[in-house]
């Protein structure tokens, strides 16, 4: 019986993540008074890319060729380690908070290497910026997850979302503070405003896009899909760890259905918030970003200090 739920959990991240990206683009388009592409457009983009030929640079080494598979596989493995719709599932192997953080770092590592690999002018500085932002965001990310870990007495992500919700005011404030810190890190790690513009064409302003300028065909599809997966995973972490209302605590059909529905509602709130944020503010200049990440770190440290 549990294997059915694990199967759903396994496919949920890759199947639903392009829809999330489509929703963000649709909302941004509507706020610009356009109709925009349909919410299922990213699926069509991925399908088309998977059926195109590829052009590989002659300067590229095996790292360039292998990186998309590793990056995509890492997002799948992390997708199995975070609570999505059910908190009664147990993953005592890879469900640890630090393992999730460093597993995602594997993906960043290989993407940055792939950016340098082809020796183009843009990939190199894209990798440099991406690694700078990612290095400074790790502190905030670990402490944000630490807040909810201390609140529930464990760092296993499934167990955190399963813990009894203490809605007393004393422990609610640290969670809100650390959610803001976590949200800033979410924007940083998934290359959203104000850290990066995912739709830009100006290479000098790119961070994430600059590293994938050399990819084409199926490898590009895998990397775009992996970055959609990463956004989905971070949104799921934000939704389920900080606000675990409605998640399924047992294997009854009713609570599962409830869990899935609530999960999508929470995710939609986060995606809508991201889209509205992207339509309201401009991308920050690169050297203002460390200040923002330090703010996130300090918020999370204060939240941790409140709790213990």
């Amino acid at each position, binding site marked *: 019986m549990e294997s059915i739920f694990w199967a759903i959990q396994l496919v949920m991240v890759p199947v639903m993540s392009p829809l999330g990206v489509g929703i963000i683009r649709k909302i941004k388009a509507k706020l610009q008074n356009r109709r925009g592409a349909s919410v299922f457009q990213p699926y069509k983009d991925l399908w088309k890319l*998977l*059926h195109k*030929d*590829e*052009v*590989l*640079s*002659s*300067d*590229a*080494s095996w*790292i360039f060729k292998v990186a998309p*598979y*590793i990056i995509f*596989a890492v997002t*799948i*493995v992390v997708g*199995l380690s975070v609570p999505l719709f059910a908190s009664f599932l147990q993953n*005592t*192997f*890879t469900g640890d908070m*630090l*393992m999730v953080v*460093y*597993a995602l*770092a*594997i993906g960043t*590592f290989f993407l*940055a*290497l792939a950016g*340098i*690999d*082809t*020796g*183009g*002018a843009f990939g*190199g*500085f894209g990798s*440099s910026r991406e690694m*700078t932002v*990612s*290095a*400074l965001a790790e*502190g905030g990310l*670990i*402490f944000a997850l*630490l807040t909810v*870990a*201390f609140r529930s007495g*464990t*760092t*296993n992500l499934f167990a955190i979302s399963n813990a009894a919700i203490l809605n007393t005011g004393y422990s609610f404030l640290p969670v809100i503070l650390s959610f803001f810190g976590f949200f800033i890190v979410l924007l940083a790690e998934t290359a959203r405003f104000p850290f990066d513009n995912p739709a830009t064409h100006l290479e000098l302003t790119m961070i994430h896009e600059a590293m994938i*300028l*050399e990819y084409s*065909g*199926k490898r590009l599809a895998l990397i775009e899909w992996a970055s959609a997966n990463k956004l989905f995973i971070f949104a799921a972490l934000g939704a389920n760890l900080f606000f675990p209302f409605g998640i399924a605590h047992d294997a009854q059909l009713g609570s599962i259905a409830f869990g899935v529905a609530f999960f999508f509602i929470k995710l939609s709130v986060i995606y809508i918030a991201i889209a509205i944020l992207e339509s309201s503010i401009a991308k920050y200049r*690169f*050297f203002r970003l460390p200040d923002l990440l330090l703010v996130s770190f300090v918020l999370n440290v204060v939240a*941790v*200090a409140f709790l213990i």
Partner: protein
Amino acid sequence: MLDAILSPVGFISLVLFFGVGAIGALMFRKNDEFANVWSSFFAVAGSLWGVLFALLALNAAYPLLLSFGVNTFPLFSVSLTVDKLSAFFIFVISAIALFCSIYGYGYVKHYYGKYSIGTLGFFYNLFIIGMLLVVTASNAIFFLIAWEIMSVASYFLVVYDRNEQENVKAGFLYLVMTHVGTAFIIAAFLLLFKYTGSFDFEAVKSGALLIPASVKDVIFVLSLIGFGTKAGIIPFHIWLHGAHPAAPSHVSGLMSGVMIKTGIYMMIRIFLDLLQPVPTWWGPVVMIVGSVSALLGVLYALTEHDIKRLLAYHSIENIGIILLGLGSALTFSSLNLPSLALLGLVAALFHTLNHATFKSLLFLSAGSVINGTHTRNMEEYGGLIKYMPYTALFFLVGSMAISALPPFNGFFSEWLTFQALFQGMKSLDLFTKWTFIGSAGALAFTGGLALECFVKAFGATFLARPRSAEARHAKESSLSLKFGMGALAAMALLFGIFSGYVTSILNRIGLDFGFTSSFVSSTPEQSLAAGGFSIVSGPAFFILLAAVVLAVVFAVKFLVNRNQKVRVGATWDCGVDLTPRMEITSTGFARSIILIFKGILKPSIQREIEYRDADSRYLPISRKITLKVNDMYRTYFYAPLSGLVSFVSERAKYIQSGNINAYILYILVALLASLYLVK
């Protein structure tokens, strides 16, 4: 038979292997090839013996004791104790020496005819003997003799390549700094002798209660500075980034991977073993020192474009991480929480083992690259992955391990250190709590910055296109080098996957210190469980990731993308020819983070521009930007200090007037003073 190995005879034969190797190398130094074979053979044989000996000693019920000449000298005796902590360090020394020696056999060949290989073999084996005796000595004077052997042998190894002037200068600085540290250590031992009446560690341990608290604090500070100089904590690290790059690469690996850990060993021995019970503020001080070393070490590493200096700074960073584990162990033991103290100690020891593995792997790979390209400057590398694929693969494994990426070993020891810090954050005392929070923050940032630094190092060295003619003509290294690197890479992966097994062995080391139960344990499925708070599994992650990668490759390549073709073209260059100058350089890569931290690093930028027409200054022929970070510690700390010493000695030389009547007056004054004091 195993009993015969784990005996005084066994240990003596261990030392003898290296001793024969050393003396034979010196005797046969006229014949380079034979000396190389002789010293490498005995080093490898001795290391194998050492690994076997250490594994047996880790399983033994009682520590092995050896002593000679207790009754000949009053204070000095050759006494050795091999308890589980020493056995662990013997294992680390032997395992790393094994692979460094195998690598060294092939590496040393490019010194044939230039320098004497026999002396290299002599000092190399002597160095290993020194380290082995340091971790097993149990008499303070014998310890100091072994410490000196180790330091002097490594000095001669550092200045081995003496045609380079900077190597000689680096060696001299190393000699001075290590003796400054030894002076502090001698002061600490003398204080211990004064209050406990003996130089033997056993006697000191039982007499530790007689030492007054203020003297214990002084001993703590002296030992921290003295052993910290060897370990390379900031601000006593100024010798490290000069000496480690100067030595031949297999020696660098041994120095950086193992020798600096002997400082850690003695810190553990003195703080956790000899001077118990300790005040509560010692632990947080060690942790603060560790956090500062970790953060500053990695920031300085980011500024480097010499590949071996970059790795040397990373050693400082990892020593900082080990000190975080050690400091938390000290804090917990002073708060009477033995299971948590063992958690901190296990974290520190596991990180010691892991760092020895991946740091020596990285140094050996760097040596292989330097062998092929004849330069240490990363700005002249590039594209080496096509010419040196094995070296690139092993360097990649080392980079992933040092950046704490699962499933390699670095992740699990950093995980354990994090667990120790998380548990400590719950402590009640405000100062301790904020030290733990600050250390956890430092560790989190260090992990991210180390990842960035190794993307830079690996990317600038192996990826993109070659930036110089040497890089284009580089060739892969020979078999012995590949074997040495490959074995260490395999060890990095295996220690990660079998981290549960390693942790259970490390837990047993706690028995030496009276810690019987541990906060961290390994489950039957080889997961690491930290007492109900966290659980993580190495083998499961590895298998899951490998399975998913294979599944994705299969699905995409053979199901979805079957009919599509892959064409090889050029990098998209916007229509302009791409030259190697257009790739990102290592300085350019790190520029963003250097500017972000410019308050700490204080970089200086120099711009040189050469114009076609000096008057109009429109079209430059060349533009050179030098981004430098000055060594703050030498300018603001050591230079004034050495200036003060010179000033005082200038004034003091007036005592030597040359007048014999003045000297007779000095003797009379000294005689009267000592008669007065003896009364």
